Protein backbone atom coordinates (compact mmCIF):
# COMPACT_ATOMS: atom_id res chain seq x y z
CA UNK A 1 0.00 0.00 0.00
CA UNK A 2 1.36 3.43 -0.86
CA UNK A 3 2.02 5.87 1.97
CA UNK A 4 -0.74 8.16 0.72
CA UNK A 5 -3.28 5.30 0.79
CA UNK A 6 -2.06 4.24 4.21
CA UNK A 7 -2.52 7.70 5.68
CA UNK A 8 -5.89 8.00 3.94
CA UNK A 9 -7.15 4.70 5.32
CA UNK A 10 -5.89 5.51 8.83
CA UNK A 11 -7.52 8.92 8.61
CA UNK A 12 -10.79 7.52 7.33
CA UNK A 13 -11.17 4.82 9.96
CA UNK A 14 -9.71 6.99 12.69
CA UNK A 15 -12.53 9.51 12.44
CA UNK A 16 -15.81 9.05 14.17
CA UNK A 17 -17.84 9.79 11.07
CA UNK A 18 -16.75 6.44 9.74
CA UNK A 19 -19.38 4.96 12.07
CA UNK A 20 -22.01 6.69 9.92
CA UNK A 21 -21.25 4.13 7.24
CA UNK A 22 -22.64 1.24 9.24
CA UNK A 23 -26.39 1.81 9.84
CA UNK A 24 -27.53 2.18 6.21
CA UNK A 25 -26.16 -1.13 4.88
CA UNK A 26 -27.47 -2.88 7.99
CA UNK A 27 -30.98 -1.47 7.45
CA UNK A 28 -30.85 -2.58 3.81
CA UNK A 29 -30.03 -6.17 4.73
CA UNK A 30 -32.55 -6.22 7.59
CA UNK A 31 -35.37 -5.02 5.34
CA UNK A 32 -34.51 -7.63 2.70
CA UNK A 33 -34.34 -10.42 5.29
CA UNK A 34 -37.60 -9.29 6.89
CA UNK A 35 -39.49 -9.10 3.58
CA UNK A 36 -38.21 -12.49 2.50
CA UNK A 37 -39.04 -14.20 5.80
CA UNK A 38 -42.54 -12.70 5.83
CA UNK A 39 -43.11 -14.14 2.37
CA UNK A 40 -43.78 -10.80 0.66
CA UNK A 41 -43.70 -10.97 -3.16
CA UNK A 42 -40.25 -9.85 -4.38
CA UNK A 43 -42.03 -7.81 -7.07
CA UNK A 44 -43.52 -5.76 -4.21
CA UNK A 45 -40.47 -5.17 -2.00
CA UNK A 46 -37.68 -5.54 -4.57
CA UNK A 47 -37.88 -2.14 -6.28
CA UNK A 48 -38.32 0.00 -3.14
CA UNK A 49 -35.59 -1.81 -1.17
CA UNK A 50 -33.06 -2.47 -3.93
CA UNK A 51 -33.49 0.76 -5.88
CA UNK A 52 -35.30 3.14 -3.52
CA UNK A 53 -33.02 2.42 -0.57
CA UNK A 54 -29.99 0.58 -1.93
CA UNK A 55 -29.12 2.45 -5.09
CA UNK A 56 -30.81 5.79 -4.40
CA UNK A 57 -29.70 6.23 -0.78
CA UNK A 58 -27.14 3.75 0.56
CA UNK A 59 -24.73 3.90 -2.40
CA UNK A 60 -24.62 7.70 -2.87
CA UNK A 61 -24.65 8.52 0.85
CA UNK A 62 -21.84 6.09 1.68
CA UNK A 63 -19.91 7.39 -1.34
CA UNK A 64 -20.50 10.93 -0.11
CA UNK A 65 -19.26 10.23 3.41
CA UNK A 66 -16.18 8.40 2.17
CA UNK A 67 -15.49 10.47 -0.94
CA UNK A 68 -15.51 13.78 0.88
CA UNK A 69 -13.64 12.18 3.82
CA UNK A 70 -10.52 11.06 1.96
CA UNK A 71 -9.50 14.56 0.91
CA UNK A 72 -12.08 17.05 2.19
CA UNK A 73 -11.51 16.14 5.84
CA UNK A 74 -7.76 16.62 5.43
CA UNK A 75 -8.34 19.98 3.77
CA UNK A 76 -10.67 20.99 6.61
CA UNK A 77 -8.23 20.19 9.39
CA UNK A 78 -5.14 21.29 7.46
CA UNK A 79 -3.31 17.95 7.52
CA UNK A 80 -3.36 17.95 3.70
CA UNK A 81 -0.34 20.26 3.90
CA UNK A 82 1.85 17.37 5.06
CA UNK A 83 1.13 15.43 1.90
CA UNK A 84 1.26 18.44 -0.38
CA UNK A 85 4.70 19.59 0.82
CA UNK A 86 6.22 16.53 -0.78
CA UNK A 87 7.77 16.37 -4.25
CA UNK A 88 4.98 14.12 -5.51
CA UNK A 89 3.19 14.68 -8.81
CA UNK A 90 -0.36 15.47 -7.76
CA UNK A 91 -1.84 12.46 -9.56
CA UNK A 92 0.10 10.31 -7.11
CA UNK A 93 -1.97 11.88 -4.36
CA UNK A 94 -5.37 11.91 -6.07
CA UNK A 95 -5.31 8.38 -7.51
CA UNK A 96 -4.52 6.52 -4.24
CA UNK A 97 -7.18 8.57 -2.46
CA UNK A 98 -9.71 7.82 -5.18
CA UNK A 99 -8.81 4.14 -4.99
CA UNK A 100 -9.36 4.10 -1.23
CA UNK A 101 -12.66 6.00 -1.51
CA UNK A 102 -14.03 3.84 -4.34
CA UNK A 103 -12.78 0.64 -2.70
CA UNK A 104 -14.23 1.35 0.75
CA UNK A 105 -17.54 2.50 -0.77
CA UNK A 106 -17.75 -0.51 -3.10
CA UNK A 107 -17.16 -2.99 -0.28
CA UNK A 108 -19.55 -1.24 2.11
CA UNK A 109 -22.35 -1.10 -0.47
CA UNK A 110 -21.76 -4.17 -2.64
CA UNK A 111 -22.03 -6.68 0.22
CA UNK A 112 -25.52 -5.66 1.46
CA UNK A 113 -26.72 -5.21 -2.13
CA UNK A 114 -25.50 -8.67 -3.00
CA UNK A 115 -27.39 -10.12 -0.04
CA UNK A 116 -30.55 -8.16 -0.82
CA UNK A 117 -30.40 -9.00 -4.55
CA UNK A 118 -29.91 -12.66 -3.76
CA UNK A 119 -32.91 -12.69 -1.42
CA UNK A 120 -35.07 -10.80 -3.93
CA UNK A 121 -34.32 -12.95 -6.94
CA UNK A 122 -31.10 -14.84 -7.44
CA UNK A 123 -27.36 -14.95 -6.87
CA UNK A 124 -27.04 -13.53 -10.37
CA UNK A 125 -29.03 -10.42 -9.46
CA UNK A 126 -26.97 -10.10 -6.27
CA UNK A 127 -23.73 -10.25 -8.24
CA UNK A 128 -24.94 -7.84 -10.91
CA UNK A 129 -26.03 -5.32 -8.25
CA UNK A 130 -22.68 -5.66 -6.52
CA UNK A 131 -20.76 -5.18 -9.79
CA UNK A 132 -22.89 -2.24 -10.97
CA UNK A 133 -22.68 -0.53 -7.58
CA UNK A 134 -18.88 -0.86 -7.70
CA UNK A 135 -18.93 1.06 -10.99
CA UNK A 136 -21.24 3.59 -9.34
CA UNK A 137 -18.91 3.79 -6.33
CA UNK A 138 -16.04 4.81 -8.62
CA UNK A 139 -18.08 7.47 -10.44
CA UNK A 140 -19.55 8.92 -7.22
CA UNK A 141 -16.14 8.91 -5.50
CA UNK A 142 -14.51 10.77 -8.40
CA UNK A 143 -17.31 13.32 -8.30
CA UNK A 144 -17.26 13.86 -4.52
CA UNK A 145 -13.46 13.91 -4.35
CA UNK A 146 -13.36 16.63 -7.00
CA UNK A 147 -16.12 18.49 -5.15
CA UNK A 148 -13.94 18.68 -2.02
CA UNK A 149 -11.42 20.64 -4.10
CA UNK A 150 -13.95 22.79 -5.92
CA UNK A 151 -15.99 24.00 -2.96
CA UNK A 152 -15.67 24.48 0.76
CA UNK A 153 -18.99 22.69 1.23
CA UNK A 154 -18.56 19.43 -0.63
CA UNK A 155 -21.01 17.50 1.58
CA UNK A 156 -23.79 20.03 1.03
CA UNK A 157 -23.27 20.14 -2.72
CA UNK A 158 -23.04 16.36 -2.86
CA UNK A 159 -26.34 16.08 -0.98
CA UNK A 160 -27.95 18.52 -3.39
CA UNK A 161 -26.81 16.37 -6.29
CA UNK A 162 -28.02 13.14 -4.73
CA UNK A 163 -31.31 14.36 -3.24
CA UNK A 164 -32.41 17.12 -5.61
CA UNK A 165 -30.88 16.21 -8.94
CA UNK A 166 -31.03 12.43 -8.81
CA UNK A 167 -33.86 12.01 -6.33
CA UNK A 168 -36.34 14.73 -7.16
CA UNK A 169 -35.61 15.89 -10.70
CA UNK A 170 -34.83 12.35 -11.79
CA UNK A 171 -38.43 11.32 -11.22
CA UNK A 172 -40.00 14.47 -12.71
CA UNK A 173 -37.75 15.59 -15.56
CA UNK A 174 -36.64 12.54 -17.52
CA UNK A 175 -33.80 14.42 -19.26
CA UNK A 176 -31.86 14.74 -16.01
CA UNK A 177 -31.43 10.97 -15.94
CA UNK A 178 -28.65 11.24 -18.52
CA UNK A 179 -26.58 12.94 -15.81
CA UNK A 180 -27.55 10.61 -12.98
CA UNK A 181 -25.04 8.06 -11.73
CA UNK A 182 -27.89 6.23 -10.02
CA UNK A 183 -29.52 5.62 -13.42
CA UNK A 184 -26.27 4.26 -14.85
CA UNK A 185 -26.01 1.77 -12.01
CA UNK A 186 -29.63 0.63 -12.53
CA UNK A 187 -29.11 0.25 -16.29
CA UNK A 188 -25.88 -1.71 -15.83
CA UNK A 189 -27.31 -4.01 -13.15
CA UNK A 190 -30.41 -4.68 -15.25
CA UNK A 191 -28.26 -5.52 -18.26
CA UNK A 192 -26.17 -8.01 -16.24
CA UNK A 193 -29.25 -9.70 -14.70
CA UNK A 194 -32.55 -8.86 -16.45
CA UNK A 195 -35.27 -9.55 -13.87
CA UNK A 196 -37.97 -6.90 -14.28
CA UNK A 197 -37.25 -5.61 -10.77
CA UNK A 198 -35.03 -2.79 -12.08
CA UNK A 199 -36.32 -0.12 -14.43
CA UNK A 200 -33.47 1.71 -16.10
CA UNK A 201 -34.01 5.22 -17.39
CA UNK A 202 -30.99 5.30 -19.70
CA UNK A 203 -29.58 2.87 -22.25
CA UNK A 204 -26.66 0.63 -21.39
CA UNK A 205 -24.16 2.33 -23.78
CA UNK A 206 -25.06 5.73 -22.32
CA UNK A 207 -24.62 4.33 -18.82
CA UNK A 208 -21.22 2.79 -19.64
CA UNK A 209 -19.85 5.81 -21.49
CA UNK A 210 -21.14 8.35 -18.97
CA UNK A 211 -19.80 6.38 -15.99
CA UNK A 212 -16.37 6.34 -17.61
CA UNK A 213 -16.55 10.01 -18.56
CA UNK A 214 -17.56 11.12 -15.06
CA UNK A 215 -14.91 8.95 -13.39
CA UNK A 216 -12.09 10.12 -15.64
CA UNK A 217 -13.25 13.71 -16.07
CA UNK A 218 -13.64 14.50 -12.37
CA UNK A 219 -10.37 12.72 -11.54
CA UNK A 220 -8.48 14.84 -14.06
CA UNK A 221 -10.22 17.93 -12.70
CA UNK A 222 -9.28 16.98 -9.13
CA UNK A 223 -5.61 16.50 -10.09
CA UNK A 224 -5.53 19.90 -11.73
CA UNK A 225 -7.24 21.61 -8.81
CA UNK A 226 -4.86 19.99 -6.33
CA UNK A 227 -1.93 21.34 -8.37
CA UNK A 228 -3.25 24.85 -7.66
CA UNK A 229 -4.23 24.15 -4.06
CA UNK A 230 -4.20 27.44 -2.16
CA UNK A 231 -4.14 27.86 1.56
CA UNK A 232 -6.62 30.32 2.96
CA UNK A 233 -5.14 33.70 3.72
CA UNK A 234 -4.46 35.13 7.13
CA UNK A 235 -7.65 35.29 9.13
CA UNK A 236 -6.41 36.75 12.38
Amino acid at each position, binding site marked *: MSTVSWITVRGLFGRRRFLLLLPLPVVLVLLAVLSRSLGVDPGEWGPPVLVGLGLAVVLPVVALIVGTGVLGAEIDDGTIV*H*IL*TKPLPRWQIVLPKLAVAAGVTAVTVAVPLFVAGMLADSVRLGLSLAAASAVGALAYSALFLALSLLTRRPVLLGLVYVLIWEGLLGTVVSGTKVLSIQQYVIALADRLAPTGLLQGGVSVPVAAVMSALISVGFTVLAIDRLRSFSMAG*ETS
Partner: protein
Amino acid sequence: MTTISADQAAGTPTAVTSTLDLAGVSRWYGNVVAVNDVSMSLGPGVTGLLGPNGAGKTTLLHMMAGFLAPSRGAVSLDGRPTWRNPDVYRRLGLVSEREAVHTFLTAYEFVLASAKLHRLPDPAGAARRAIALVEMEAAQDRRIGTYSKGMRQRARVAAALVHEPQVLLLDEPFNGMDPRQRLHMMELLHRLGDAGRTILFSSHILEEVEQVSGTVQVMVAGRLAASGDFRTIRRLMTNRPHVFTVHSTDDRALAVALIAEASVTGVELDRAGLTVRAGDYGAFTRVLPKIALREGVRVRQLVPQDESLESVFSYLVEA
Protein backbone atom coordinates in the same frame (compact mmCIF):
# COMPACT_ATOMS: atom_id res chain seq x y z
CA MET B 1 18.78 18.92 -8.36
CA THR B 2 20.29 15.46 -8.67
CA THR B 3 23.44 16.68 -6.95
CA ILE B 4 21.32 17.80 -4.03
CA SER B 5 19.64 14.41 -3.71
CA ALA B 6 23.02 12.72 -3.80
CA ASP B 7 24.28 15.04 -1.10
CA GLN B 8 21.23 14.35 1.00
CA ALA B 9 21.89 10.65 0.76
CA ALA B 10 25.43 11.25 1.91
CA GLY B 11 24.12 13.24 4.83
CA THR B 12 25.89 16.45 3.84
CA PRO B 13 23.06 18.56 2.51
CA THR B 14 24.51 21.77 3.81
CA ALA B 15 27.21 21.64 1.14
CA VAL B 16 24.54 23.05 -1.15
CA THR B 17 22.79 26.24 -0.21
CA SER B 18 19.59 27.61 -1.62
CA THR B 19 18.25 31.10 -2.20
CA LEU B 20 14.62 32.06 -2.07
CA ASP B 21 13.83 35.11 -4.17
CA LEU B 22 10.78 37.34 -4.18
CA ALA B 23 10.54 39.88 -6.96
CA GLY B 24 7.83 42.52 -6.74
CA VAL B 25 5.38 40.11 -5.13
CA SER B 26 1.83 41.27 -4.46
CA ARG B 27 -1.25 39.35 -3.46
CA TRP B 28 -4.74 40.70 -3.25
CA TYR B 29 -8.11 39.24 -2.38
CA GLY B 30 -10.74 41.23 -4.23
CA ASN B 31 -10.15 44.81 -3.17
CA VAL B 32 -8.01 43.91 -0.19
CA VAL B 33 -4.28 43.98 -0.71
CA ALA B 34 -2.68 41.45 1.63
CA VAL B 35 0.88 41.72 0.33
CA ASN B 36 2.05 44.78 -1.54
CA ASP B 37 5.08 44.77 -3.84
CA VAL B 38 7.51 42.83 -1.65
CA SER B 39 10.98 42.01 -2.91
CA MET B 40 13.57 40.13 -0.91
CA SER B 41 16.24 37.53 -1.27
CA LEU B 42 16.78 34.99 1.50
CA GLY B 43 20.06 33.19 1.79
CA PRO B 44 21.64 30.86 4.38
CA GLY B 45 21.14 31.75 8.04
CA VAL B 46 18.15 32.59 10.18
CA THR B 47 15.84 35.39 9.11
CA GLY B 48 12.92 36.64 11.16
CA LEU B 49 9.77 37.84 9.43
CA LEU B 50 8.38 40.32 11.89
CA GLY B 51 5.09 42.17 11.82
CA PRO B 52 1.85 42.71 13.68
CA ASN B 53 -1.09 40.36 13.18
CA GLY B 54 -2.71 40.88 9.82
CA ALA B 55 0.42 42.36 8.25
CA GLY B 56 0.48 39.70 5.54
CA LYS B 57 3.21 37.46 6.97
CA THR B 58 1.24 34.25 6.51
CA THR B 59 0.15 35.21 3.01
CA LEU B 60 3.79 35.89 2.14
CA LEU B 61 4.92 32.58 3.65
CA HIS B 62 2.23 30.71 1.75
CA MET B 63 3.42 32.25 -1.49
CA MET B 64 7.02 31.33 -0.64
CA ALA B 65 5.93 27.77 0.06
CA GLY B 66 4.00 27.41 -3.19
CA PHE B 67 0.59 27.36 -1.54
CA LEU B 68 -0.66 30.59 -3.03
CA ALA B 69 -0.18 32.18 -6.43
CA PRO B 70 1.17 35.74 -6.34
CA SER B 71 -1.28 38.15 -7.97
CA ARG B 72 1.76 39.92 -9.36
CA GLY B 73 5.50 39.28 -9.21
CA ALA B 74 7.38 36.01 -8.84
CA VAL B 75 8.56 33.75 -6.05
CA SER B 76 11.39 31.40 -6.95
CA LEU B 77 13.65 28.94 -5.21
CA ASP B 78 17.03 28.75 -6.93
CA GLY B 79 15.47 30.23 -10.02
CA ARG B 80 12.49 27.86 -10.22
CA PRO B 81 8.97 29.06 -9.40
CA THR B 82 7.42 27.64 -6.22
CA TRP B 83 3.81 27.82 -7.44
CA ARG B 84 2.46 24.67 -9.11
CA ASN B 85 5.87 23.07 -8.83
CA PRO B 86 5.95 20.20 -6.29
CA ASP B 87 9.60 19.59 -7.11
CA VAL B 88 10.60 22.54 -4.91
CA TYR B 89 9.71 20.45 -1.85
CA ARG B 90 12.89 18.45 -2.35
CA ARG B 91 14.69 21.55 -1.07
CA LEU B 92 11.99 23.24 0.95
CA GLY B 93 10.28 22.38 4.22
CA LEU B 94 7.25 24.12 5.69
CA VAL B 95 5.88 24.23 9.22
CA SER B 96 2.53 25.97 8.88
CA GLU B 97 0.88 27.91 11.66
CA ARG B 98 -2.24 25.79 11.90
CA GLU B 99 -1.64 23.01 14.30
CA ALA B 100 -2.49 20.34 11.78
CA VAL B 101 -1.23 16.91 12.67
CA HIS B 102 -2.51 13.40 12.16
CA THR B 103 -3.31 12.88 15.82
CA PHE B 104 -3.94 9.17 15.28
CA LEU B 105 -0.28 8.57 14.37
CA THR B 106 2.73 8.37 16.65
CA ALA B 107 5.48 10.93 16.06
CA TYR B 108 7.69 8.21 14.60
CA GLU B 109 4.97 7.02 12.21
CA PHE B 110 4.27 10.61 11.25
CA VAL B 111 7.90 11.46 10.49
CA LEU B 112 8.44 8.09 8.82
CA ALA B 113 5.44 8.71 6.54
CA SER B 114 7.02 12.02 5.56
CA ALA B 115 10.31 10.29 4.81
CA LYS B 116 8.53 7.71 2.66
CA LEU B 117 6.57 10.36 0.80
CA HIS B 118 9.89 12.02 0.02
CA ARG B 119 11.10 8.65 -1.34
CA LEU B 120 14.23 8.84 0.80
CA PRO B 121 16.62 5.92 0.36
CA ASP B 122 16.56 5.07 4.09
CA PRO B 123 13.26 6.41 5.47
CA ALA B 124 13.63 4.77 8.89
CA GLY B 125 17.12 6.19 9.40
CA ALA B 126 16.05 9.63 8.21
CA ALA B 127 13.04 9.59 10.54
CA ARG B 128 15.22 8.65 13.52
CA ARG B 129 17.73 11.39 12.68
CA ALA B 130 14.99 14.02 12.37
CA ILE B 131 13.40 12.97 15.65
CA ALA B 132 16.79 13.08 17.36
CA LEU B 133 17.35 16.57 15.98
CA VAL B 134 14.25 17.86 17.80
CA GLU B 135 15.01 15.63 20.83
CA MET B 136 11.77 13.72 20.75
CA GLU B 137 13.14 10.18 20.99
CA ALA B 138 11.56 9.53 24.38
CA ALA B 139 8.03 10.27 23.20
CA GLN B 140 8.26 9.08 19.61
CA ASP B 141 6.07 6.03 20.09
CA ARG B 142 3.17 7.87 21.69
CA ARG B 143 0.22 9.07 19.65
CA ILE B 144 0.55 12.73 18.67
CA GLY B 145 -2.90 13.32 20.12
CA THR B 146 -1.41 12.90 23.60
CA TYR B 147 1.29 15.58 23.08
CA SER B 148 1.53 19.08 24.45
CA LYS B 149 1.49 21.92 21.96
CA GLY B 150 5.25 22.34 22.04
CA MET B 151 5.82 18.62 21.44
CA ARG B 152 3.43 18.65 18.50
CA GLN B 153 5.29 21.57 17.07
CA ARG B 154 8.57 19.69 17.42
CA ALA B 155 7.07 16.63 15.75
CA ARG B 156 5.97 18.82 12.87
CA VAL B 157 9.41 20.40 12.63
CA ALA B 158 10.94 16.90 12.55
CA ALA B 159 8.59 15.94 9.70
CA ALA B 160 9.50 19.11 7.81
CA LEU B 161 13.23 18.42 8.32
CA VAL B 162 13.24 14.73 7.51
CA HIS B 163 14.56 15.27 3.97
CA GLU B 164 17.14 17.77 5.22
CA PRO B 165 15.83 20.67 3.14
CA GLN B 166 18.05 23.65 2.34
CA VAL B 167 15.16 25.99 3.10
CA LEU B 168 12.84 25.78 6.07
CA LEU B 169 9.85 28.09 6.49
CA LEU B 170 8.10 28.29 9.86
CA ASP B 171 4.92 30.26 10.49
CA GLU B 172 4.75 31.51 14.10
CA PRO B 173 6.74 28.53 15.42
CA PHE B 174 6.80 29.84 19.00
CA ASN B 175 3.06 30.27 19.39
CA GLY B 176 1.74 28.40 22.38
CA MET B 177 5.14 27.24 23.58
CA ASP B 178 6.30 27.55 27.13
CA PRO B 179 9.65 29.34 27.76
CA ARG B 180 11.66 26.13 27.89
CA GLN B 181 10.19 24.80 24.65
CA ARG B 182 10.74 28.21 23.11
CA LEU B 183 14.40 28.19 24.09
CA HIS B 184 14.80 24.73 22.68
CA MET B 185 13.22 25.70 19.38
CA MET B 186 15.40 28.81 19.19
CA GLU B 187 18.54 26.74 19.71
CA LEU B 188 17.40 24.36 17.00
CA LEU B 189 16.84 27.18 14.50
CA HIS B 190 20.25 28.62 15.36
CA ARG B 191 21.94 25.31 14.75
CA LEU B 192 20.18 24.86 11.42
CA GLY B 193 21.06 28.38 10.34
CA ASP B 194 24.68 27.99 11.38
CA ALA B 195 24.84 24.80 9.34
CA GLY B 196 24.14 26.81 6.20
CA ARG B 197 20.40 26.31 5.85
CA THR B 198 18.06 29.11 4.90
CA ILE B 199 15.62 29.47 7.77
CA LEU B 200 12.73 31.91 7.77
CA PHE B 201 10.31 32.16 10.66
CA SER B 202 7.50 34.60 11.21
CA SER B 203 6.55 36.20 14.48
CA HIS B 204 4.60 39.14 15.82
CA ILE B 205 6.69 39.27 18.96
CA LEU B 206 9.77 41.46 18.87
CA GLU B 207 11.67 39.60 21.57
CA GLU B 208 11.37 36.27 19.79
CA VAL B 209 12.97 37.65 16.69
CA GLU B 210 15.63 39.39 18.74
CA GLN B 211 16.73 36.15 20.34
CA VAL B 212 16.87 34.06 17.22
CA SER B 213 17.93 36.05 14.26
CA GLY B 214 20.41 38.64 13.19
CA THR B 215 18.48 39.52 10.10
CA VAL B 216 14.88 40.62 10.02
CA GLN B 217 12.30 41.52 7.45
CA VAL B 218 9.62 43.73 8.97
CA MET B 219 6.18 43.71 7.39
CA VAL B 220 3.49 46.26 8.13
CA ALA B 221 0.14 46.40 6.35
CA GLY B 222 1.30 44.19 3.51
CA ARG B 223 4.47 46.11 2.81
CA LEU B 224 8.07 45.38 3.60
CA ALA B 225 8.73 48.18 6.08
CA ALA B 226 12.32 47.48 6.99
CA SER B 227 14.85 44.82 6.32
CA GLY B 228 18.36 44.14 7.45
CA ASP B 229 20.32 43.75 10.65
CA PHE B 230 18.14 43.46 13.72
CA ARG B 231 20.21 45.78 15.91
CA THR B 232 19.98 48.64 13.42
CA ILE B 233 16.23 48.26 13.22
CA ARG B 234 15.95 47.94 16.96
CA ARG B 235 17.85 51.22 17.36
CA LEU B 236 15.47 52.87 14.93
CA MET B 237 12.64 51.57 17.05
CA THR B 238 13.99 52.73 20.41
CA ASN B 239 15.07 56.13 19.10
CA ARG B 240 11.66 56.97 17.76
CA PRO B 241 9.70 59.79 19.45
CA HIS B 242 7.66 58.56 22.40
CA VAL B 243 4.28 60.07 23.02
CA PHE B 244 2.95 60.66 26.54
CA THR B 245 -0.29 62.08 27.83
CA VAL B 246 0.17 64.16 30.96
CA HIS B 247 -2.51 65.40 33.34
CA SER B 248 -1.45 67.92 35.94
CA THR B 249 -2.76 70.74 38.10
CA ASP B 250 -1.48 73.31 35.55
CA ASP B 251 -1.01 71.84 32.08
CA ARG B 252 -0.17 75.19 30.48
CA ALA B 253 2.67 76.05 32.85
CA LEU B 254 4.04 72.54 32.51
CA ALA B 255 3.91 72.79 28.72
CA VAL B 256 5.90 76.01 28.73
CA ALA B 257 8.57 74.49 30.96
CA LEU B 258 8.72 71.22 29.01
CA ILE B 259 9.23 72.76 25.59
CA ALA B 260 12.53 74.20 26.84
CA GLU B 261 13.78 70.67 27.53
CA ALA B 262 16.19 69.06 25.06
CA SER B 263 14.56 65.65 25.37
CA VAL B 264 11.14 67.04 24.42
CA THR B 265 10.48 67.44 20.71
CA GLY B 266 6.91 68.65 20.82
CA VAL B 267 4.08 69.66 23.13
CA GLU B 268 0.41 69.85 22.37
CA LEU B 269 -2.18 71.35 24.67
CA ASP B 270 -5.87 70.66 24.35
CA ARG B 271 -8.91 70.01 26.49
CA ALA B 272 -7.98 66.41 27.06
CA GLY B 273 -4.69 67.45 28.60
CA LEU B 274 -1.11 67.67 27.54
CA THR B 275 0.45 65.52 24.84
CA VAL B 276 4.22 65.41 24.94
CA ARG B 277 6.55 64.02 22.30
CA ALA B 278 9.92 62.96 23.68
CA GLY B 279 12.93 61.97 21.62
CA ASP B 280 14.59 60.16 24.48
CA TYR B 281 12.39 58.00 26.67
CA GLY B 282 14.80 57.75 29.61
CA ALA B 283 15.83 61.39 29.74
CA PHE B 284 12.25 62.63 29.59
CA THR B 285 10.94 60.41 32.35
CA ARG B 286 13.85 61.45 34.59
CA VAL B 287 13.47 65.15 33.96
CA LEU B 288 9.68 65.43 34.23
CA PRO B 289 9.45 65.15 38.05
CA LYS B 290 12.20 67.73 38.47
CA ILE B 291 10.45 70.23 36.20
CA ALA B 292 7.13 69.66 37.90
CA LEU B 293 8.71 70.25 41.29
CA ARG B 294 10.46 73.41 40.09
CA GLU B 295 7.26 74.84 38.55
CA GLY B 296 5.15 73.82 41.53
CA VAL B 297 2.90 71.69 39.33
CA ARG B 298 1.50 68.40 40.47
CA VAL B 299 1.50 65.63 37.86
CA ARG B 300 -1.61 63.51 38.31
CA GLN B 301 -1.15 61.12 35.46
CA LEU B 302 1.55 60.12 32.98
CA VAL B 303 0.53 57.66 30.28
CA PRO B 304 2.87 56.45 27.54
CA GLN B 305 0.70 56.28 24.44
CA ASP B 306 2.41 54.23 21.83
CA GLU B 307 4.01 51.27 23.49
CA SER B 308 2.12 48.76 21.37
CA LEU B 309 4.10 46.89 18.79
CA GLU B 310 1.76 48.16 16.10
CA SER B 311 2.82 51.73 16.77
CA VAL B 312 6.45 50.72 16.69
CA PHE B 313 5.84 49.12 13.34
CA SER B 314 3.91 52.02 11.96
CA TYR B 315 6.70 54.32 13.00
CA LEU B 316 9.04 52.17 10.95
CA VAL B 317 6.81 52.56 7.91
CA GLU B 318 6.97 56.32 8.22
CA ALA B 319 10.73 56.33 8.86
